[in-house]
């Protein structure tokens, strides 16, 4: 099972992205996307942004579950208070664990925002952030 995570800023710019695979059932955490799929992931995820923007006004929660489908891939979205979107491309439904993953990711993102040297919408390049996201992925997905 493979995942593609993207964090999109307020100006629809890319802030962070990560490709990984499941750690459950002996998975090694490496994504199993075919090379075609690897190239398509960012496109699929960005094309679902329109849907996110429509749905976010109807919903009063941050976690919006699955909002789009692409063949057999599902896209789940989470919109933060500052209008930053977390999008996850995945293959199987896993609402609860994805919600927990997004909530912890939100925590991590807020802590990153607290640093005076980080401005909103800037790309996140910190290795510490990357490591922590991978740990969250390992924990929930």
């Amino acid at each position, binding site marked *: 099972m493979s995942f593609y995570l993207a964090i999109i800023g307020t100006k629809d710019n890319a802030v962070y992205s990560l490709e990984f695979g499941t750690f459950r059932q002996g998975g090694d955490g490496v994504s199993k996307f075919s090379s075609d799929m690897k190239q398509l992931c960012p496109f699929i995820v960005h094309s679902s942004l329109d849907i996110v923007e429509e749905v976010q006004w109807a919903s009063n929660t941050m976690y919006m579950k699955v909002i789009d489908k692409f063949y057999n891939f599902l896209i789940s979205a989470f919109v933060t208070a500052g209008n930053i979107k977390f999008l996850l491309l995945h293959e199987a439904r896993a609402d609860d664990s994805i919600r927990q993953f997004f909530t912890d990711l939100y925590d991590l993102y807020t802590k990153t925002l607290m*640093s*005076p*040297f980080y401005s909103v919408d800037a790309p996140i390049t910190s290795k*510490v952030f990357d490591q922590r996201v991978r740990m969250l992925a390992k924990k929930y997905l």
Partner: protein
Amino acid sequence: MSRTPRQIGEDVWKTRIEKVNAELITLTYGSVVAQLCKDFGNDYIQVNEQLDKMGYNIGIRLIEDFLARANTERCRSFKETAEVVSKVGFKVFLNITPNVSNWSADGQQFSLIFDENPLADFVELPDDGKAIQELWFSNILCGVLRGALEMVQLQVEVQFIKDVLRGHDTTEMKVTLIKILEDEMPVGDE
């Protein structure tokens, strides 16, 4: 009867201080440093100097406030000064008590080891390779100490030698006594 510096510090902190939100301080100080970095074009050596100057201006005024609140006796030795600075001074203004250690053989130099630093909560230094080698994020504290001690007749040199933001295992500030200042008569007086 409060006698040890630790007890005096606790007592003053609990009774005579108005508290302010810690995150407000952290965010305000963080934005000061970030703005300085932008203004000086990421010349971190300059930023360190400016923080030190700002700290100096704070320190020369802060000492009056400190003496009014803490009402401690005159320190009889540099060792006592170190204790009062760490257990009362830092406690009253930042609610932290850094450890005094690494005394030099002649007793003129000591280190303050900080377990926690409220000024640097959640801070990550920029990734440009230079900041992590050159910027001392909390350098304002060095200026504050230098200014405050100068007003009580101690000329000191204060600098950070380790900082967890830079990847070291602790945050350590070295304080060296240069000389004890004698009151000088103003020029032109008989």
